């Protein structure tokens, strides 16, 4: 969500520190994903002070069969930066979805979205990412 491992590390430690403090004093909330919810808000807070990307009309392309091989040519950090640059709530939806730990209702709950909104954001993100892949690897996959 932050595209910066240093900031991510700081948010992670603050979240755990706060969780340990609450466990010792108030007791932990009786809610399954409270830690992720908490971490998400800390990420949003941490990125508020960053330079914000200008709202941009991004190109969209239909996903192609070659997309998987294009993605394999990416560096993980390129993907992390692409996701972290996405506007909220698209960024949260993508981060939780590709973490592959939650089902759609849990993601919608965490990102405070309705199913249709989540569905639209994921579909739009895939098409935008496909357009970006096509722009990054214009000649198609190398064999």
């Amino acid at each position, binding site marked *: 969500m932050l595209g910066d*491992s240093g900031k991510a590390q700081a948010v992670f430690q603050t979240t755990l520190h706060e969780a340990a403090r609450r466990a010792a004093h108030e007791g932990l909330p009786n809610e399954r994903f409270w830690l992720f919810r908490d971490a998400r808000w800390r990420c949003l807070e941490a990125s508020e002070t960053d330079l914000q990307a200008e709202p941009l009309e991004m190109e969209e392309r239909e*996903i192609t069969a070659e997309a998987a091989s294009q993605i394999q040519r990416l560096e993980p950090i390129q993907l992390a930066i692409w996701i972290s640059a996405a506007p909220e709530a698209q960024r949260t939806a993508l981060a939780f979805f590709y973490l592959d730990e939650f089902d759609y209702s849990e993601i919608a709950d965490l990102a405070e979205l309705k199913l249709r909104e989540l569905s639209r954001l994921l579909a739009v993100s895939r098409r935008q990412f496909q357009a970006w892949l096509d722009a990054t690897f214009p000649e198609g996959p190398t064999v």
Partner: protein
Amino acid sequence: MKTRRLSRRQRALANCAPVSEERIRDRSMRAAVLRARGSNGFANQQSFDRAVAALVRAIPIPPEAAEWFSRKELIAPSKWTWKKTARNPAVLAIGIALVVIAGVFVFNFVGRLSDFPGSGTARKLLSIAGSTRSVLLDPVAGDAGTLSDLFFLKHGLEHYDVPEEFADFRTIGCRVFDDDEARRVAQIWVIEKQMQFFLFPAERNAKTGAVLQFPGWRYVRQEGWVGAVMERNGVCFMAALRGREKDLAPYISKTKQ
């Protein structure tokens, strides 16, 4: 490849189809994925998502943070609980149906507990008691216990005796009539609380013809009337009045079992 048409909700669900199939936890998502599986677009989406998820897993995690994620699963699946199961509409519907069935069963069982040979006839006679007017009966003024001789001499009815608990009650009238179920029935109207007495043949075993006996007094209720029934010498006696068991209880409390 042949594709099946998806509803709007199924299309929305298919867009959110999880990368790993084991994350499919509800039926609507499973149905949407099954339906969408035939299309090239969905196949491309799935391979796209798998590739992105693989790349996400490859994003380096600082060692200080990584040691917190030594477990294979980041999130433990939600635990099975009685509370969660009970909220399932199907389980709720089955539960309600079972409660209703159990209720009917218990109601019938409790009803059967108070049944005795001749209880059906007794209930029918209580209905007759409720509709009988005194003008239908032959006027007879005397003690109820003395009517046994009248029934024997005039109608040939043996053992149609009023038990001693009720023998001293003064009568208003009586009659003997035929009933499909109870056959020859003697009906007596007494002054005391406008009670009515019925004498009718006891139920018999259909094969052996033996009288189906039962000990002591038994209560029956029908349409606001209550009757106390006892069997003696193959004849049932029923004292009936409009009211409840507690109204009859004082008359038979000494002998009731």
